[in-house]
């Protein structure tokens, strides 16, 4: 790769000759303001915000489409550039409505930020602004406000280049230009909501999150999406202990800058849902009754002892973290002594695409297998276990959080069990067959790791507090409200459930059955995984970091059983 020497604002940098000025500057930490340019989209060059002065060029040039060349001297902050930027900003603001108070983008709006940074601060425009339609449902999940649009065309390019469908288009001319879909069509591709993220203003907004909260009221926690085996990196926006929205986080090794609408909309609502399991439950006289943790744990320990080892089966979960599955398989193998251990697969063949969406709808099936939730020698696999239950060979089943009854033919088998323990976060059909239910923490309520289909370990971080966690003490992200709420403030008190991480529940049962697992925190469990599981060797939460890291070596353990 031929590299060239370029001077930007007096600093000499070395850059690949294929780079544009804006890219080269960005790589070296120099920020050039821009609206239409996006690192993941083609260059359009229509916003003129990235104008810079290049010596020996008669006019200012746009940094996003000018390639670097040997000996180029670029100025991004001199008077000429500032003057030009002021002019560009003034043009943008001529027809932009004063909607900030009612605009969901306010607080994370590029136009707003740049107005503060690069505009003159007042308007010379006395005439009437151009009025365009507002409050249009442009797609099932996206609201559109034509007045706010600054015509950068990022959304059009996203649909064309990333989603692969040409759904958006500009019509009309000049300051009457308007974004629209084709007549009778909607912005309804499975990635449609990414246009909300890339829209530099509030023209395209999230219909689901509409008016729910101002962005500055939320805390944002880096974690990963639970929608499929891709494990898209996301940020969880939480206010008052309630998840309000998910947004993608850039990770070029996993999801680029995008996520699908399914992941964005359907993978957080169950955390806030009404049907959350609020406490451990025991079936008494045919009804599940809420009991204390100690009672439920003691009950499970004593019941499990009454079965023969070969009569017990254990099902881990591809929705649980590696830590949960690891402690669970140790418990099954060392405490219960069973070899019948496996987990259910949730592969929807055909429901996948070449962009992000995977057929495997569980986030951690690779990890579950990696940490040892696989049948022992001559042990039963998942299908064999279900068959065994039907035939009466398996009498007791212990399952981590997974809606087993939703799988074809499984519900009928579960009804034949003598003893069925299940961890669950929400009420589901499976609970109808359960004798004991433990309230499990969701992915948003615990620390842990998951492995995506490409063998990449990624962190799950808690964003919502349970009774056993405390926002300040347990290192959560804190919003201003979280920091300053006192005990008598209503807004400091979102609902907190009495749920625990599965590995903690399993460890307490093991302790009662005579085997003490010496873990206090999830990272202690992970450290043990890193010592004992070959593919995790040498890893730690620190090394996994915010963007994850690939597993060391691929082991024989197959992902698809």
């Amino acid at each position, binding site marked *: 790769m031929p590299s060239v020497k370029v001077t930007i604002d007096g600093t000499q940098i070395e850059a690949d000759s294929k780079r544009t000025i804006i890219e080269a500057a960005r790589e070296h930490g120099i920020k050039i303001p821009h609206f239409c340019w996006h690192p993941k989209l083609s260059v359009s060059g229509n916003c003129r915000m990235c104008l810079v002065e290049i010596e020996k060029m008669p006019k200012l040039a746009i940094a996003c489409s000018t390639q670097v060349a040997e000996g180029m001297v670029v100025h991004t902050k001199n008077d000429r550039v500032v003057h030009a930027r002021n002019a560009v900003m003034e043009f943008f603001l001529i027809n932009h409505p004063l909607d900030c108070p*009612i605009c969901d983008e306010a607080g994370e709006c590029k136009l707003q930020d740049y107005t503060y940074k690069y505009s003159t601060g007042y308007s010379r425009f006395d005439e009437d602004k151009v009025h365009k339609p507002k409050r249009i449902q442009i797609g099932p999940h996206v609201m559109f406000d034509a007045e706010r649009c600054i015509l950068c065309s990022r959304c059009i390019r996203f649909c064309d280049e990333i989603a692969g469908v040409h759904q958006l288009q500009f019509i009309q001319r000049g300051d009457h230009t308007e974004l629209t879909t084709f007549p009778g069509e909607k912005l309804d591709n499975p990635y449609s909501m990414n246009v909300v993220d890339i829209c530099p203003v509030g023209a395209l907004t999230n219909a689901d999150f509409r*008016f*729910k909260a101002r962005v500055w*009221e939320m805390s944002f926690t880096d974690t990963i999406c639970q929608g499929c085996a891709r494990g898209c990196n996301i940020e969880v926006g939480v206010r008052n202990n309630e998840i309000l929205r998910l947004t993608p986080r850039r990770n070029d090794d996993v999801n680029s800058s995008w996520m699908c609408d399914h992941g964005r909309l359907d993978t957080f609502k169950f955390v806030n849902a009404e049907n959350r399991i609020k406490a451990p439950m025991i079936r008494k006289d045919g009804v599940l009754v809420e009991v204390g943790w100690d009672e439920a744990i003691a009950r499970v320990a004593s019941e499990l002892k009454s079965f023969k080892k070969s009569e017990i089966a254990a099902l881990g979960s591809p929705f649980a973290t590696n830590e949960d599955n690891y402690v669970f398989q140790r418990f099954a193998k060392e405490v219960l002594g069973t070899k019948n251990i496996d987990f259910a697969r949730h592969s929807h063949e055909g429901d996948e695409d070449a962009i992000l969406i995977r057929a495997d709808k569980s986030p951690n099936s690779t990890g579950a297998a990696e940490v040892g939730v696989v049948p022992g020698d001559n042990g039963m696999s998942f299908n064999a276990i279900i068959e065994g239950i039907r035939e009466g060979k398996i009498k007791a089943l212990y399952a981590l959080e997974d809606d087993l009854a939703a799988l074809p033919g499984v519900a009928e088998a579960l009804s034949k069990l003598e003893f069925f323990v299940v961890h669950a976060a929400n009420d589901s059909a499976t609970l109808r067959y359960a004798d004991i239910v433990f309230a499990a923490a969701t992915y948003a309520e615990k620390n842990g790791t998951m492995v995506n289909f490409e063998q990449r370990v990624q962190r799950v971080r808690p964003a919502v507090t349970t009774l056993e966690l405390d926002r300040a003490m347990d290192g959560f992200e804190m919003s201003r*409200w979280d920091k300053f709420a006192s005990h008598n*403030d209503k807004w400091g008190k979102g609902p907190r459930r009495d749920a625990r991480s599965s590995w903690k529940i399993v460890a307490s049962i093991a302790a009662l059955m005579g085997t003490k697992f010496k873990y206090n925190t999830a990272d202690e469990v992970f450290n043990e995984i890193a010592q004992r599981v070959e593919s995790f060797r040498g890893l730690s939460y620190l090394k996994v970091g915010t963007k994850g890291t690939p597993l060391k070596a691929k082991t024989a353990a197959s992902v698809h059983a």
Partner: protein
Amino acid sequence: MSLEKSTIIRKKDLSLLERLYIPEIVKGMTLTIRQMFTPTFTTQYPEERFQPPASFRGRPVLVEEHGVERCVACGLCSRVCPALAIEVQAGETELGKERYPEKFEINMIRCIFCGFCEEVCPEEAIIMSQEYELAFTNPQDALFGKDKLLVPIEKVQTRLDFLRSNR
């Protein structure tokens, strides 16, 4: 400040009369006695009430115009409030303003009457009224919802005029 510099400064050039002290006491007492016969400033509160000037910052209220609040629930008051007294939850309305406060609650125990909310409001929707009689026997009573905060525009016109004239 160093210890040397902080030593007590005494006036050395007192006249003999001042040094005698007694005449100074007499002077002081003359003053106090004279004060006894000047009119009092006291307002006899429950009977006489202080009518605050327009610049007075009483409890914050929401302006109600044409039967609806001006507020669009932008949350700026809530953000700027140094005491975190304001809680706003926006909702969608069919009106042109699109957005309205589904819930607008001021915790009057937290409120410090700084007037920042009024200053930051882009809609002139929250303003400081002239009401100052705020006492509660129960913390719950101090949570003012929209029912208590909404005030017809006619009642706060003086404050609005004052704000306009001092912009």
